[in-house]
């Protein structure tokens, strides 16, 4: 279908974009890569009066070093660049792996990290990775800047803490602990489809004990989830059949997936447990992390 008519502005600075959002209060949509927004327009699920195209704001397209080995990523950074940037591959290989599951080549050429996070699809990879990696998001408005943890940003399906007159401008990823290892597993019906469910884990291991365990899942509810109880259950133990079974039981108890077109809630609960187990096994077995510390 063809999208409804809209007006179009293409600001070249964050300030001008915010002014445009304020001018059209509540009736403007920001378009970055447009890989989620354009389908919604073509389906006529949305009919904004104005599109504010931020592709001309060069100051939002960057990947920079942050203190202590972290990264600051501009909201306009394209998926393909995020997936292939040496700094991401070296310091956050789990993120690079997750990006391979984001749609397809042509979509990754256009789609942006800011767009994916703000769209907040409940089965998308990037929101889960932001939650796993304890990302801090910078939301910029005309009255100033506020920073919010990814875990607080996602409030529901397609719903975030971003106000209508704000722009997500930056995603900060704090460095992972030295020698962090990782796992990522996703199941989708076809390559590049949204996940039916996905799970990802990072941990460090010494003396056959896991530490710094982080575990996140998506596709099981309105937002991605960190699984604190399962993380705690693994801390200080080897990742083996017994500890994995404990973690999986805690994960399955913590989630409440709904039935939908693609599968029943029970199926998703079953599926995500298997994905969690595989992600943990990979994180435990994967030799030597690439988190910045020399091996």
């Amino acid at each position, binding site marked *: *279908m*063809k*999208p*409804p*008519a*809209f*007006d*179009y502005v*293409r600001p070249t600075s964050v300030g001008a974009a915010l002014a445009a959002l304020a001018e059209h209060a509540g009736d403007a949509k920001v*378009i970055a890569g*447009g*890989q989620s927004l*354009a*389908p919604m*327009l*073509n*389906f006529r699920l949305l009919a904004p*009066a104005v*599109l504010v*195209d931020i*592709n001309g704001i060069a100051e939002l397209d960057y990947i920079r070093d942050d203190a202590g080995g972290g990264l600051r990523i501009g909201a306009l950074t394209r998926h*393909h660049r995020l997936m292939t940037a040496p700094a991401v591959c070296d310091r956050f290989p789990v993120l690079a792996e997750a990006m*391979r599951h984001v*749609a*397809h*080549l*042509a*979509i990754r*050429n*256009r789609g942006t990290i800011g767009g994916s996070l703000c769209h907040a699809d409940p089965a998308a990879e990037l929101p889960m990775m932001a939650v796993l990696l304890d990302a801090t998001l910078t939301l910029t408005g005309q009255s100033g800047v506020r920073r919010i943890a990814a875990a607080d940003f996602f409030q529901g399906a397609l719903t975030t803490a971003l106000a209508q007159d704000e722009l997500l401008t930056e995603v900060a990823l704090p460095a992972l602990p030295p020698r962090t290892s990782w796992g990522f597993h996703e199941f989708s019906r*076809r*390559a*590049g489809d949204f996940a039916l469910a996905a799970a990802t884990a990072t941990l460090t291991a010494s003396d056959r004990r896991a530490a710094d365990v982080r575990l996140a899942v998506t596709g099981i509810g309105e937002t991605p989830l960190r699984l604190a109880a399962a993380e705690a259950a693994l801390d200080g133990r080897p990742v083996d059949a017994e500890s994995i079974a404990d973690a999986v039981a805690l994960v399955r108890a913590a989630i409440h997936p709904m039935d939908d077109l693609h599968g029943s809630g029970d199926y998703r609960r079953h599926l995500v447990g298997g994905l969690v187990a595989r992600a943990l096994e990979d994180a435990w077995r994967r030799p030597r992390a690439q988190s910045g510390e020399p091996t």
Partner: protein
Amino acid sequence: MNRTVTIGLTVNGNPVERAVEPRLHLADFLREELHLTGTHIGCEHGVCGACTVLMNGDSVRACLTFAVQADGAEITTVEGLGRVDDLSPLQQAFREHHALQCGFCTPGMLMTALDMIRKQIPPTQAAVRDALSGNLCRCTGYQFIVDAVVAVLAANVDTKEGDG
């Protein structure tokens, strides 16, 4: 509402200027305004890949890109590759490997494969299948398309393609 925006871009090496409605997507712009009907429209929501073109060298979905967003860009469509009597290496490989039947998906397949050459995707079945996964074909079963692309990547052909 409905005011038009004047855009200037390069399509297959030719400068183009038009006044367009902001809601006109790039695939319709190419087909309706420029009569470049080689870019096909299948699903209009980014799933099928038939409308894939190159924008500044990167493959993009022309149905998910508005023409106004291509202002200042270099666009390459399938018409920018070879001609019937002078096929590009990729087109020649598709012909030799019987990589098309009805031809509806072929322009999108070719443009995606061009981006794979540019991005130096390794010439393996797995890598090519992964990179082609966003282009649907309902005739061939994909095998011959994958073979054709692998052959071109393996030959590491120094093509003129992508120059538009």
